[in-house]
């Protein structure tokens, strides 16, 4: 009964409030001054008078949604077809020179140039046969890096032109490097690929034939079948091959340095190197070519000249007593860089720098080490900002194989190893910008077929230094510079004579 009376009481209040919406709300001192809970109840009831109708919220929502969909379809229809344009924006080291090159190579016209106070070009627009391109100097501080900073570019600029052969000749004459020679392609174009001196890759193409997608696929499948059927490329035989000169391995560091004669003396004192051969410039102590042996390895060297400026490099020198070797190197005139200590990665090692600027990393694999066991007495060590790209180059050009890679979370690659032929090449770098010093190296490589490897190296992005030629000392040799600045002297020993 008490509950009944409460619900009756409440209904009485509600009825009054609903009948006379404008009546003042009963206050707590009104009907039941002893019950403080009346006031909040009245508050609730009063507010409920404004309660929206149950279906109104949903109706308005449906109405709004109808308007939204009408507005969006009304907007979508009358807008004419929008044509997006894609414009390559090239980052180059030396934009002014690049503009001059593109004028010569591709007949570009300069449309606009924005000069920065520091001399760099902040933006330029050029026109190549009606195609627009943007370019600017690299601004590494703003993350705008050129192929030279990145160690290559993954983008190919495809340029459709009226006469691919004529423009190809013009581009090469201006200094472009042939990556793939111009030839008729199965998809109906005649095209070739070129790398400009700033590291950008261009496909020049002229359409010759309209090929249907089905026919294109058919031709592509046919080519794939032929390639699969072709015998696997002959692998270099194990052990010392006849194309490798006696006493050498696939890989030999070829140091081009200043003070070559002094360096030979230093290496004799520091590492008991044995001089095997020396060609001095007549009447001088300038060394045109020299060879020396340390342990089971050869080192070749020459004095730097105008054609081949000095490229001091890093050599890993294996020693059974790195502490003693380090001390001897210091005593012979080397400068300490990093004293000998146990390294976390499995060696006891230290580093010195000699007067010619080479870094010599003296190491001994510690017991249990598996990473450095196979190293010979001397191993060249390369550096690249983009270490994977350098590895890929060695794989494509020289048939190298990555056998080890240590990669840190920050992208740095403190150590990687690539096997080329019977030898290992060590390298360090990064997958982005390296915190290691980047400097080019110079390596002598014995291969079964100089001409083929030379061609492969060019296809993999290298520039030619010397075309393949027979040498009087019984080698057929060539020279290339890879996209990372390293020089590779490719040779096949063909003669039986000794140097």
């Amino acid at each position, binding site marked *: 009964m008490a*509950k009944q009376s409460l619900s009756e009481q409440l209904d009485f209040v509600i009825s009054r409030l*609903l009948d006379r919406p404008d009546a003042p709300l009963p206050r707590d001192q009104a009907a039941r001054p002893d019950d403080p809970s009346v006031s909040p109840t009245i508050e609730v009831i009063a507010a409920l008078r404004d309660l*929206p*109708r149950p279906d109104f919220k949903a109706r308005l929502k449906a109405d709004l949604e109808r*308007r939204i969909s009408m507005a969006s379809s009304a907007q979508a229809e009358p807008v004419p077809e929008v044509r997006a344009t894609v414009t390559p924006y090239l980052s180059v080291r030396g934009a002014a020179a690049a503009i001059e090159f593109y004028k010569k190579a591709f007949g570009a016209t300069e449309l606009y140039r924005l000069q920065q106070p520091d001399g760099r070009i902040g933006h330029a627009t050029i026109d190549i046969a009606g195609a627009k391109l943007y370019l600017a100097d690299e601004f590494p501080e703003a993350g705008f890096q050129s192929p030279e900073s990145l160690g290559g570019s993954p983008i190919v600029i495809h340029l459709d032109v009226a006469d691919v052969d004529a423009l190809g000749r013009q581009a090469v004459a201006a200094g472009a490097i042939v990556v793939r020679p111009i030839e008729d392609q199965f998809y109906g174009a005649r095209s070739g690929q070129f790398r400009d001196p700033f590291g950008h890759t261009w496909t020049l193409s002229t359409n010759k034939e309209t090929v249907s997608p089905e026919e294109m696929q058919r031709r592509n499948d046919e080519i794939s079948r032929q390639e699969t059927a072709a015998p696997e490329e002959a692998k270099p035989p194990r052990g010392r091959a006849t194309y490798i000169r006696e006493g050498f391995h696939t890989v030999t560091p070829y140091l081009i340095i200043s003070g070559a004669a002094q360096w030979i003396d230093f290496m004799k004192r520091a590492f008991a190197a044995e001089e095997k051969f020396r060609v001095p410039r007549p009447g001088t102590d300038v060394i045109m070519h020299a060879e020396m042996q340390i342990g089971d390895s050869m080192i070749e060297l020459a004095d730097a000249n105008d054609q081949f400026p000095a490229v001091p490099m890093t050599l890993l020198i294996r020693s059974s007593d790195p502490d003693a070797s380090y001390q001897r190197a210091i005593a012979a005139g080397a400068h300490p860089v990093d004293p000998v200590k146990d390294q976390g990665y499995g060696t006891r090692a230290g580093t010195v720098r000699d007067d010619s600027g080479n870094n010599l990393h003296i190491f001994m694999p510690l017991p249990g080490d598996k990473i450095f066991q196979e190293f010979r007495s001397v191993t060249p060590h390369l550096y690249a900002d983009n270490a994977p790209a350098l590895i890929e180059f060695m794989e494509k050009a020289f048939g190298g194989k990555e056998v080890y890679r240590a990669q840190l979370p920050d992208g740095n690659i403190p150590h990687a190893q690539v096997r080329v032929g019977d030898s290992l090449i060590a390298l360090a770098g990064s997958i982005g910008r390296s915190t290691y010093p980047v400097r080019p190296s110079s390596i002598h490589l014995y291969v079964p077929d100089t001409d083929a490897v030379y061609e492969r190296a060019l296809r993999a992005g290298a520039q030619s230094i010397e075309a393949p030629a027979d040498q009087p000392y019984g080698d057929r040799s060539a020279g290339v510079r890879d996209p990372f600045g390293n020089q590779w002297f490719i040779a096949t020993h063909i003669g039986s004579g000794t140097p």
Partner: protein
Amino acid sequence: MSAKPDASEQLLIEAAQKDPRRFADLYEANFERVYAFVARRVGERADAEDITAEVFHQALANLHNFEWRGVPFSAWLFRIASNAIADRWQRAARESGSPPSALADDPPDPSASVDPEAIEKCARLFRLVAELPADQRSVIEMRFTAGKSIAEIARELGRTDGAVKQLQFRAVRSLRTRFEKKHQKRTRAKHG
């Protein structure tokens, strides 16, 4: 106790500015507030619905003009609502040929300050009604929005008058309890 501007509201606005279909989220978050604001100023339910609809139509059309300055989105909606109410009074005045002041005893003053706390409480109460058990909710809706008597509701639901009164009583008690609970929780949160 007013709606505090918060990051999630800003996200909802930015999303709706990019894609109008996301406006539905803003509508869901603000419907009760706007309706409460309008209903307090407009006597007739039909007028309140018209004006509420107009507020959201205008908000949708002008959302791209809304700039986030840390003020709650509802304040912007209230301004639209105030203008819409004032327009309606002025139009009514023009149509009747008399100045607005002569039209009614208490023409709403659009510049009158909003009591955001009362609006917020009211809006919360509306949302609480939607959470009531179905039979309680039906009684409340029929009684308060359709203005039906207990006898009419009892006939419609096939129940006794006493049972309907009981449902009404439980509903109001439950609303009051949850209303106070939420109120306290919010107050604690604010000071904690």
